[in-house]
C-alpha cells in the first residue's frame, strides 16, 4: 500500500474506533481486544488519576505516556501529533495553565469531533483541535515549545516528512517527546501489507535503527528514555517489536 491509500485505511480504522468508543484493536494485535482501555493505559504508564482526568478521552490507543516523560512549563505552547480523543492534550493543558496552549492535530474527523466535545464538556479553554496531516503541519515555523506524540508516527507513510515538519515548527531548543512502536526484527511482506496490522501500529513501523536515524537526519539530537519490550507479549502476540520512548532536542 502506498501514501494516501495507507492514510485512508488508517482514517477508516480510527473513525470506527472513535464511533465505538473503545480501542477495538487500534494499536495492537487481536489479543488487545480482551483488555479494557483502562487496563491498557495503566500498563503503558498512565496513573489512575491521569486516566480519570477526562475518562472519555482515554481510548487505550497509546504505547507510553509522553506527558509523564516531558518537562512542561506553565505558559508553554504544546503540539500533539495525532491527538485522538485528546487524553494527552488535556493532561498537557493542566500543566501549561491559562497562559499556555495545547494544539491537537489529527486527520480523523470523528476523533477531532470527540476531542472537541470532551474539551467543551470539561471546560478546557486552553486547547485547540484541528483536522490536519502530521506530514503537512498547518503550524507556523518556530512556534512550539514542546511536541508530544503517542503511538502515531508509525502510521504515517512518510516518517521523514513528519520529523522534518516537527523540527520546523519547534522553537530553537524546543523538545519532542515520543512513544512509538518500532520493530526489532523483520516482518513478512504479508504482514507489512496487512490492513489491520498497519492500522494496529505494526505494518508501517520501522526498524529501531532506521527510526532513530530518520529523527537525527531531520536535525534532532535524540536520547532514548525507555524501551518497553514486554508490550510485544501483552498486546502484539509476540511480534518482534517494542515501544520506544525518546526525547529529541532541536
Amino acid at each position, binding site marked *: 500500500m502506498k501514501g*494516501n491509500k495507507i*492514510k485512508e485505511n488508517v482514517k477508516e480504522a480510527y473513525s470506527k474506533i472513535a464511533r465505538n468508543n473503545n480501542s477495538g484493536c487500534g494499536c495492537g494485535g487481536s489479543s488487545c481486544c480482551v483488555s479494557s482501555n483502562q487496563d491498557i493505559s495503566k500498563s503503558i504508564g498512565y496513573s489512575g488519576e491521569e486516566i480519570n482526568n477526562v475518562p472519555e478521552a482515554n481510548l487505550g490507543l497509546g504505547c507510553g505516556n509522553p506527558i509523564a516523560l516531558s518537562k512542561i512549563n506553565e505558559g508553554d*505552547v504544546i503540539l500533539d501529533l495525532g491527538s485522538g480523543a485528546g487524553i494527552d492534550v488535556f493532561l498537557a493543558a493542566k500543566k501549561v495553565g491559562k497562559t499556555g496552549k495545547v*494544539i491537537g*492535530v489529527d*486527520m480523523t*474527523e470523528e476523533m*477531532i*469531533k470527540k476531542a*472537541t466535545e470532551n474539551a467543551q464538556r470539561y471546560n478546557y*479553554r486552553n486547547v*485547540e*483541535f*484541528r*483536522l*490536519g*496531516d502530521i506530514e*503537512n*503541519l*498547518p*503550524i*507556523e*515555523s518556530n*512556534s*512550539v515549545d514542546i511536541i508530544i506524540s503517542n503511538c502515531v508516527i508509525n502510521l504515517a507513510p512518510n516518517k521523514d516528512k513528519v520529523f522534518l515538519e516537527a523540527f*520546523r515548527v519547534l522553537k530553537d531548543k524546543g523538545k519532542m517527546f515520543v512513544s512509538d512502536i518500532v520493530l526489532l526484527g523483520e516482518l513478512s511482506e504479508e504482514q507489512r501489507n496487512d490492513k489491520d496490522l498497519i492500522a494496529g501500529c505494526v505494518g508501517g513501523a520501522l526498524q529501531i535503527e532506521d527510526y532513530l536515524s530518520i529523527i537525527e537526519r531531520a536535525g534532532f539530537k535524540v536520547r532514548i528514555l525507555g524501551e518497553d519490550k514486554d508490550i510485544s507479549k501483552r498486546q502484539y502476540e509476540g511480534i518482534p517489536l517494542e515501544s520506544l520512548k525518546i526525547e529529541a532536542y532541536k
Partner: protein
Amino acid sequence: MKHELMEILCCPMCKGDLVLTVDEEDDKEIIKGSLFCGKCNEHYPIEDGIPNMLPPDLRE
C-alpha cells in the same frame, strides 16, 4: 477556533499566511468560516468550530 490561534496557523502546503473570513462566531470562538491561502489559491473551511487544515487531496 479561537481568534488568537491565527498567530501560529499557516497553510499546510506552502506554510504561507492565511486570510480569515468569519461567517459565524460566538463570544468564545469562530464557529463557521474559512481560511484562504492566496499563494495556493486554496480555501480551508471552519465548521462547527473546527478548522479543516487537511491538504486538499486528503479531504473528503
